[in-house]
């Protein structure tokens, strides 16, 4: 270490000028730390959370979801639905692309036709194949006709960011390299996997963002993200610090630690085709044997809310009257006995049966697995934890090669997610019913919820669907993550959205004393 010090002193004398990337004082620059780089800046291709969050700043959809997941207009001023399969959007006429060209209905037409073109090979095409036609009725009017009624059309399809068509003489725009949108921020430059620079769109149709520039820095190591924050090189970290590192910031007056209930939902996935887990009593016993409160308290440092289903309390379709599974090892043991899995030696070391629990190499995920292993041992269930790198783990889950696993659903907005994760037509490869759960009555309810256009009809269908999933337990609900943002106190005006995205950074202001040079 002494020698290290010597070497560093030597280098410091020769080359070190300034260790921080301090922005020019006259320009309000907000520096945000990300854990992973956005994979695509072309919204037709980006599936990862980082791409989604950055795209929201560069582009706009026809509509967007507000903080309560309600649909509000964005590029559309309003819309008519003459029948259950036709939507006519009236577009804003005061919107310009970042290159100065006016936004028109032709841009909307191009966005959806190019997405649906098989040649484009968009991974999102399957989610939009209910669109039968897109027609430009006027410069400021566009009509969508669907092949059948699809209630989540607005929330799921019309939030897609609108992109500009290629320029004359150009086959395709390379939006991954040079994105052009209508959003509150304009792309400046990027260094792949290192940083992404945006500047405020002075001509933004809502209002110019308060900060002048936004710089995203990609910092894969959580500890280094914290160090960069403490060093003064990062101003905002949102949902990218593990709970144990967050506790180190508790008393630091340089930072404002904000918390708000989130929509990301963590659950234990169960393989319904497994000879042990196909017994509903076993699934219920597992739910009773897992001590969620202890997990939230000790592993997540209190940063989660216990969940009884995918939808968070407060969601318009949330159903509170469902079966709940309090921590109750005795009840769990009774259910296991009733299911035909008696404990062979009472309190002895022998287990009723063994299950394999798969997890990724995420540190918090592994700790959660270990605590669950201990909880389940108390009721006579032996758990073998298998931790894999993401590609292998995800491959096994998709292939149904698992008994138990834990994962998080990110961005839960429309209750149609139930169709995606529980409908018998959604068994992989064409969906995310990874547990291979089949319930034809539930299928009918989910079809009904998807087709009904009246909100009350949808609410009724999803209420019953939630009651069924809570008693059948095709998955075990654990919790909804709490969103946590750490913002340097030199910035104000931020309110943390439930979805944990960055749309609200438009309102962040740097305090005037810090703007002065």
């Amino acid at each position, binding site marked *: 270490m002494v020698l290290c010090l010597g070497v560093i002193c030597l280098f*410091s004398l020769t080359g070190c000028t300034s260790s921080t*990337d301090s922005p020019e004082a006259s320009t309000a620059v907000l520096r945000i730390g990300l854990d992973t780089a956005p994979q695509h800046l072309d919204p037709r291709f980006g599936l990862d959370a980082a791409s989604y969050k950055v795209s929201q700043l560069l582009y706009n959809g026809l509509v967007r979801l507000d903080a309560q997941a309600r649909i509000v207009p964005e590029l559309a001023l309003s819309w008519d639905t003459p029948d259950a399969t036709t939507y006519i959007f009236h577009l804003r006429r005061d919107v310009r692309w970042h290159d100065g060209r006016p936004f028109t209905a032709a841009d909307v037409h191009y966005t959806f036709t190019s997405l649906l073109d098989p040649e484009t090979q968009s991974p999102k095409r*399957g989610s939009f194949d209910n669109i039968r036609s897109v027609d430009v009725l006027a410069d400021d009017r566009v009509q969508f006709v669907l092949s059948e009624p699809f209630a989540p059309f607005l929330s799921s399809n019309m939030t897609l960011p609108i992109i500009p068509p290629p320029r004359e003489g150009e086959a395709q725009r390379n939006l991954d390299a040079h994105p052009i949108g209508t959003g509150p921020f304009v792309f400046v430059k990027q260094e792949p996997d290192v940083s992404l620079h945006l500047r405020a769109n002075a001509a933004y149709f809502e209002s110019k963002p308060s900060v002048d520039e936004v710089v995203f820095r990609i910092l894969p190591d959580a500890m280094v993200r914290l160090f960069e924050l403490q060093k003064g090189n990062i101003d905002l970290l949102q949902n990218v610090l593990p709970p144990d590192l967050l506790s180190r910031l508790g008393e630091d007056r340089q930072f404002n630690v904000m918390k708000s209930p989130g929509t990301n939902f963590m659950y234990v996935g169960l393989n319904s085709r497994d000879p042990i887990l196909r017994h509903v009593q076993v699934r219920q016993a597992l739910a009773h044997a897992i001590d969620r409160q202890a997990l939230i308290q000790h592993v997540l440092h209190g940063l989660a809310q216990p969940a009884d289903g995918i939808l968070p309390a407060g969601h318009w379709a949330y159903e509170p009257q469902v079966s709940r599974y309090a921590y109750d090892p005795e009840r769990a043991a009774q259910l296991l006995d009733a299911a035909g899995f008696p404990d062979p030696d009472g309190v002895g070391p022998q287990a009723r049966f063994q299950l394999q629990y798969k997890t990724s190499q995420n540190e918090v995920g592994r700790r959660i697995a270990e605590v669950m292993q201990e909880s389940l041992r108390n009721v006579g269930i032996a758990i073998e934890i298998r931790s894999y790198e993401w590609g292998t783990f995800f491959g096994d889950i998709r292939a149904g090669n698992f008994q138990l696993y834990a994962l998080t659903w990110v961005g839960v907005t429309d209750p149609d997610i139930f169709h995606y994760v529980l409908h018998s037509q959604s068994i992989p490869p064409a969906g995310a019913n990874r547990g291979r759960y089949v319930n034809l009555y539930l299928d009918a309810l989910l079809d009904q919820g998807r087709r009904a256009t009246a909100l009350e009809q949808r609410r009724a269908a999803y209420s019953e669907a939630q009651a069924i999933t809570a008693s059948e337990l095709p998955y075990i609900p654990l919790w909804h993550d709490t969103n946590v943002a750490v913002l340097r106190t030199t910035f104000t005006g931020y309110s943390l959205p439930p979805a944990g995205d960055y749309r609200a950074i438009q309102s962040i202001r740097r305090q005037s004393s810090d703007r002065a040079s």
Partner: protein
Amino acid sequence: MRTVVLRRALFILPVIWGVSTFVFLIIHLIPGDPIDLMLGETASTVDRGALRRQLGLDRPLWQQYLTFLQRAVRGDLGRSLHNRRPVSTLIGERLPATAALAGAALVVAIALALPLGVLASLRPRSWLDTVSMLLALIGVSIPNFWLGPLLILGFSLHLGWLPVSGRGDGSIAYLILPALTLGTAMMAILTRMTRAGMLETLREDYIRTARAKGLVEWVVVGKHALGNALIPLVTLIGLQGGALLSGAVITETIFAWPGLGDLTIRAIQQRDYPVVQGCVLVIALTYVVANMITDVVYAVLDPRIRFESE
């Protein structure tokens, strides 16, 4: 000398072929479908099939292997499955960062190890020796993922002398902590080897003769002893040089250093076959070339080897 170089150069082809074949098989045999990882879970079966066909992943493995070999012979490493960019471009963007990091780590390791090892050997069992060997023991025992954050905490956060992470404007200040983190283990090994080599050499008759002739001590140590003690070190530096390139993964992740290791790990996680193959090919090539250079330097330093070969 030419024979030595030619003989070693001939070894490159079979080694590179063997490594690339092994990696091709391994990456294709481990679980995880690149189509799943690219398209997520919303894509239809038809779209999955279309993309699989377009990327050639629907063809038998042996056909994919032959295509890979044919392209590789022409110097074409293919395109990334994920962003469709040429693999050679991706590697070209990352290689300079890794080369700079590995080079700096090598310099740090040698610059620290030689004086430490020599001083320890000149005063065996003294406090100097004990301290040097203790440093070597600590250096070889500390894992990178612990040392890196520790150095950041000390020199960036508390002392404020150096940046925390990234490459910044490319100044040397950004290189120091990653280079120290990566070079410490190698420094520790080289220190022990230098000490051992020097202790053995200092007992040789010609050293006694040099001293009897009245040569000053620094000439005896610096010219006659160190020159001979360096020969086994060259082999070790050659081997470790290749290891630095491939072992930079953890250091690059900690310091957000945009290098080849980071690219390789990401490609493995995404099952981006062409990128994994390209990266491993470059790493293997570096190993082989480093070994070849080692052999040549060895022959230059030790005439006995040169004459034996010829």
